[in-house]
């Protein structure tokens, strides 16, 4: 019979050597299912605590447990491999948000929210990333595909379930949410410049 600390060392080795998140069911196989899932989860929690303050951390994602580097260290790691991951455009991010928060949705639903047509390219980029996928077709004329987010999407954002997505804001209450792509705000100029003129046309 293995002691808890021996089990933890085995879990640690397996998770460090894994190329992708390992679910508890998979980890149990190493012990020929002799250790129940709750015990394993408890030991994984202990292992997670044991790694606090280190360069890597143990996290639970949708697909299982995974060791990952700390996000705060990324700026240092990037200097070793300077190629930066490209950021997604607003079109891609808004489409992703609609699929994530309103799934399952059709392309028409996405266009309805965004008020513009959704290019194939945008959906394709999200599909290539394996973040969204067509999970079926809506029973309406044309049978449009219904899109939903994948487990990989949750894994890559370090989430366990869709419930962990950032909450949507109640926007009607908030004011001044101007989000035009601009440089950082500067000190306010003198107030006289603020004198508004009505439309010049």
């Amino acid at each position, binding site marked *: 019979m293995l002691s808890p600390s021996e089990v933890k060392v085995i879990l640690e080795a397996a998770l460090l050597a894994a190329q992708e998140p390992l679910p508890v069911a998979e980890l149990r196989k190493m012990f020929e299912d002799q250790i129940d899932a709750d015990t394993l989860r408890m030991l994984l929690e202990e292992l997670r605590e044991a790694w606090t303050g280190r360069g890597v951390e143990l996290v639970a994602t949708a697909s299982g447990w995974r060791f990952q580097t700390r996000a705060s260290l990324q700026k240092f790691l990037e200097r070793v491999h300077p190629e930066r991951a490209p*950021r997604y455009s607003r079109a891609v991010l808004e489409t992703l*948000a609609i699929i994530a*928060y309103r799934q399952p949705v059709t392309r028409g639903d996405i266009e309805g929210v965004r*008020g513009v047509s959704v290019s194939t390219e945008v959906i394709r980029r999200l599909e290539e990333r394996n973040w969204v996928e067509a999970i079926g077709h809506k029973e309406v004329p044309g049978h449009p595909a219904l899109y939903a987010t994948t487990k990989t999407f949750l894994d890559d954002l*370090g989430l366990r379930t869709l419930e962990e*997505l950032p909450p949507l804001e109640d926007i009607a209450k908030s004011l001044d*949410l101007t989000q035009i792509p601009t*440089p950082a705000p500067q000190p306010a*100029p003198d107030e006289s410049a603020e004198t508004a003129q009505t439309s010049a046309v």
Partner: protein
Amino acid sequence: MSEPDQLAMSTPVAALAKVRGEPLTELPHDLYIPPDALEVYFDAFEGPLDLLLYLIRRANIDVLDIPMARLTEQYMEYVEVMRTRNLELAAEYLVMAAMLMEIKSRMLLPRPVMPAEDGEDPRAELVRRLLEYEKMKLAGQKLDALPQLGRDFLQVEVWIEQTLAQRLPEVNVVDLQDAWRALLVRAKMTQHHHVAREELSVREHMSLILRRLRGRGFAEFGELFEPARGVAVLIVNFLAVLELTREGLLEVTQGESFAPIYVKLAHAQSE
């Protein structure tokens, strides 16, 4: 429907774009953007809803009480400027223009006598769409702000030396003997006229080996060979070992893979 004479300004921002070389240090007042800067701004909008939201938020208008006349007027100015400047104008902008016009005209018409039937604010649908779009727009920004695998952190992978696990075929002495014998047989078939001479020298070496072993009974495989005498002699000598083994005069043994191979006289113990 009360509309403010002037729309209140929100916080100004700094150099956004250059117009004819002059830096534009603040966003234009009152929803108006100089045509030269418009191209720059226009690219930044994700469609008519985004543009409308910008106009509304910029002027701190209450989304739930939009001054339709003013908003429509200013939206149309944008569209007009874009058209005169030959910007490729997406059809969605024109559809939105039509929608704004329709809402505006419905608000100008006298209210129906029966409010229960058609009592809904004509702006309700627009407001609903604007709020939903804004929610998703902000949600997209929040998703982008979450740490992302590959961009903000990396999966940890310990290097495992996979080649250690590679299994190599096992070869034993008997296999080696068989291989040599097969070669020998083939050589005999194809090079018959050489065989006699080789046979002789193999026989000669067989005798030499037996003689060398007679005194002590066994020797390490390598000891039977004298590399200095050349490759041909080595081969003949090796053939001699195999031949002796085949005839049951010698025994070749090896404890395990890569261990020394020992050669001994087959009847050493009985003698």
